[in-house]
Each structure stands twice: as C-alpha cells, then as structure tokens.
C-alpha cells in the first residue's frame, strides 16, 4: 500500500484514491485560479476590515456619551476614544479576516477544512510552538535592529508625520492607566487568531498548491508586512510574517504561528505597560547596542537551526514543493 505523505494530509490530496480523478475545489470547478482567489480575497478582506472598523467607530462615537462625529475631523481627536478604536479594529478583524474568510475557505478547499486551517496538536506541534515563542522573545532585539535599519530608508515626510501621530496615539494609550487584559485581547489575541487565519491559513496554503513553499511564504510574509500600512516598519513586520509562514509549513499546523504571533504582540503590550522606559518599548527606535543585536541574532540562529533539524514523524523531504 502506498504510504500517505503528511503533505497530503495537511493540504488535502489532489487525487481521489477511488476514482483516481483530480479532486477539485468549488473555485477550481468554476475556473478560478488559486492566485486570483488568494490575492483577491486578501484585498477584499482588507477593504472589508477598514469599512467594518470605520462603521463601528462611527456608531461608537454616536452612542458614547461625550463623543460626537467632530472627533473624526479634529486632529488627534480619536486619542481620547481608544476603547472605540480598539473595538472597531477588533470587530473588523474578527468579521473580515475571520468570519468572512470561512465561506471563501469553503469555496477553495478540496476535501476538508484542515487543508486551510490545519490545527494539528501532536507533541511535535507543541514543541515547535514553544520554540517559535522562544525565537520571538529572543529575537526582539533583532527585530529592533531591523526596525532601526528600516527607519534609514527615506520616506515621504507626510507619511512619516502620519505614522508618528499614529504611534504617539497608541503609545499614549498603552502608557496610560489601561486594562492589560483588554489590551491583550484587542492587540494580541484577536490579531493572532484572525490574521493567522487569513495569511498563514487561507493565503499561504492556497498559494502552496501551485507554488513552492518558500515562494508562498515569502509572498504572504511581504503582504503581511505591507498590510499594516506602516512603511517605516515593513521590513521587520515582513520578517515576522515570513517566520510565521515557515513555522506553519514546518509544523503542519497553524497553532505555532497563532501562539508566536500572540507572544510577539503581547510582549509589546506588557513591555510598554510595565517597562515604559525600555528602549524596546520605543516604536521609533534608535540603533540598539550592537552587542545586544549580535547576541540576539546568534541566539535566534541557534534556535532556528535546532528547529530546522527537528523532523516531524513520517515527514518526507519534498515538503517544500508545490502540492499539486
């Protein structure tokens, strides 16, 4: 009997074992190429996210005592209504990236939901989850260093000014007397689940059908970097996206990426809350001490090398090839 490739369990076999005919998704039967659905839905989800968030913010300003719509037009006016902003952001992410992505996944899946939302929870996955979280924590100075390098790229002054205002607003909130649990929910938990469903679940696995895994990882990572609309942070964000893509492919599960994403965002919230004077908490960083950056890079390299050597039971060597 032919041995089943874990890859096939992960992405769904493209051939029916009984009829020996290709198993096609609803999208493929309707003639939609995978790349069109992947990029198209990322774009639509992004627009839907903005629209939903805007609607929630407007409704919030209408209903909240002491707030009105003039807040939207006055510079820095929203800074006093962070609860509404966070609510809008989370609602947008939950609905656009989470709930609305599910019917699209139904449209593109060939056999089971686990092709796009693999949630394997074997010991290998948990080990990978712990190691990925460790990389995120050890890599914080590396990200700081890359973020600093990113700031050296000249950007239009108007854009820098908009980003500076946004950063000041967010820092102002995080350094205020905010509820940590609520901030962790809005800043860490919701994005970790919803963005991973969209980028590492839906887009990465769909692109992997026709592209080599590394190509799919790079594309989704770069889009993830740009999606945050912060050009001064594109490179570190894209690198985090690429890392999350790599651990998803390597582990065959979304769980390590979700947990590592949560750890990354939660670390920032906790740092700003409990160590507001730490240079790591400063979002417009100066160059980090070189010993710190170098030490972080070496440690990340060691852990990544160890992760790379780990082999999933039954794994085949061509896990990086396109699945169809």
């Amino acid at each position, binding site marked *: 009997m032919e041995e089943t490739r874990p890859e096939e369990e992960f992405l769904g076999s493209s051939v029916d074992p009984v009829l020996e005919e290709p198993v096609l998704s609803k*999208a*493929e*039967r*309707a*003639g*939609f*190429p995978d790349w*069109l659905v992947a990029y*198209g839905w990322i*774009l639509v989800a992004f627009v839907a996210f903005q629209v939903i968030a805007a609607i929630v913010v407007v409704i919030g300003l209408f209903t909240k005592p002491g707030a009105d719509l003039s807040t939207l*037009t*006055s*510079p820095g006016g929203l800074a006093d209504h962070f609860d509404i902003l966070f609510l809008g952001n989370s609602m947008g992410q939950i609905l656009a990236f989470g709930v609305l992505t599910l019917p699209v996944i139904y449209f593109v899946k060939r056999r089971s939901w686990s092709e796009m939302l693999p949630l394997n929870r074997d010991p290998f996955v948990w080990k990978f989850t712990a190691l990925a979280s460790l990389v995120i924590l050890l890599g914080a100075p590396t990200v700081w260093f890359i973020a600093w390098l990113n700031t050296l790229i000249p950007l*239009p*002054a*108007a*854009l820098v000014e908009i980003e500076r205002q946004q950063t000041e607003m967010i820092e102002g909130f995080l350094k205020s007397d905010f509820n940590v649990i609520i901030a962790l929910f809005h800043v860490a938990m919701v994005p970790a689940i919803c963005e991973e469903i969209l980028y590492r679940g839906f887009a990465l696995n769909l692109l992997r059908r026709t592209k080599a895994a590394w190509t799919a990882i790079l594309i989704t990572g770069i889009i993830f970097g740009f999606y945050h609309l912060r050009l001064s942070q594109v490179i570190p964000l894209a690198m985090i996206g690429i890392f999350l893509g790599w651990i998803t492919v390597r582990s065959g599960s979304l769980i390590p990426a979700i947990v590592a994403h949560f750890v990354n965002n939660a670390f920032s919230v906790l740092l700003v809350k409990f160590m507001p004077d730490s240079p790591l908490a400063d979002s417009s960083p100066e160059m980090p001490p070189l010993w710190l950056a170098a030490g972080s890079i070496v440690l990340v390299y060691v852990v990544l090398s160890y992760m790379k050597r780990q082999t999933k039971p039954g794994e085949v060597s061509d896990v990086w090839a396109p699945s169809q």
Partner: protein
Amino acid sequence: MPIAFRFAMIFAIVAFVGNLIVNYMVISMEPSMTMMFIPSVAGGVICLVAAIAGLLVVRSYIKTTGLRVPVGKGAVIGLVTGVLIAVVSSVLGILWDFVDPNMAKNMMNAMMGAMDSMPGMDEASRQAAMDQMMANDPTKFSTRLMAMGIGVLMFGVVNLISGMIGAAVFSKKEEAL
C-alpha cells in the same frame, strides 16, 4: 489576448479623454464645494463605463473560440483587460504632460481653491488637508505611480466583475444557440 488588448486600448482612450475633459472643466470652474466632488463622481462613472470592456472581451472570446468560458476564467480575462486599461491610460496621461505641462499643477491649485472655499471646516483640518494635497504633488513620479496603482485596482476590480458577469451571461447564450 489580442482581443483584450484591442478593447483595452479603446477603453483606455475613452477613460483618458473622459479624465481630460473633467480636469479641464474643473480647472475652468469658479472655486466651490461642488467642484470637490466632480472628479470623484466622474471617476466612478468612467470606471463603470470602462467595465463594459470586460463584458465585451469575454463576449468576443466566446464568439471567436466557440468555447464555454467558466466564471473564473471570465474573471481573469476581465482583470487583465482592466489592468491594461489602467496602464495604457496612465501612459497616455504621462504623454499628455508634453502637450500641456501645467495641467496637473492647475488641477491641484483648483482643488486647493475649492478646499479654501469650503464652509464649516475648522482651520486645523483645512490646513491638514491642504498639506496632504501639497505632499501628493501630481507631477512627482511617486504620485503618478500611486495613481497608476489605484487605477489598476479600480479598473481591474470592475472589469473582473464584468468579466465574470460576461462569462455567466454569454456562455449561457452560446449554449442556448
């Protein structure tokens, strides 16, 4: 894709000429609040007119090949047509700079004049909007590139939809015949 290219060329010229007419109309108008909305409304209308290209390309494809086009393939044909329209009309816009190098600047000045005449807008917001307008200098390469990107998105999406509609409608008609 020669059919797509032919229709894209025609509709790119239509979009380009439409934009030109709107731009010169706005430049020659007295500053008013209405003026602010004319380019957006006209842009929407031009986009909808250009969407006909997606329908026509799919129709021609079905008629020429006699093949049934699935909705997904119609979407791809429409998308390619839309992208071509955006690129060709942007290139025509750049070439127009040689004919009238001041049009883009005059258009920006007209819009700033309109912004100045808007009632009920506080000074800080007005200044912020003006600064943003100044930062998006239409003669800069980055602004042109961004405009082309937006055009690719707009024309691409509407033609993708019209291509899908075209595939659904004309494939059925072909089958009925």
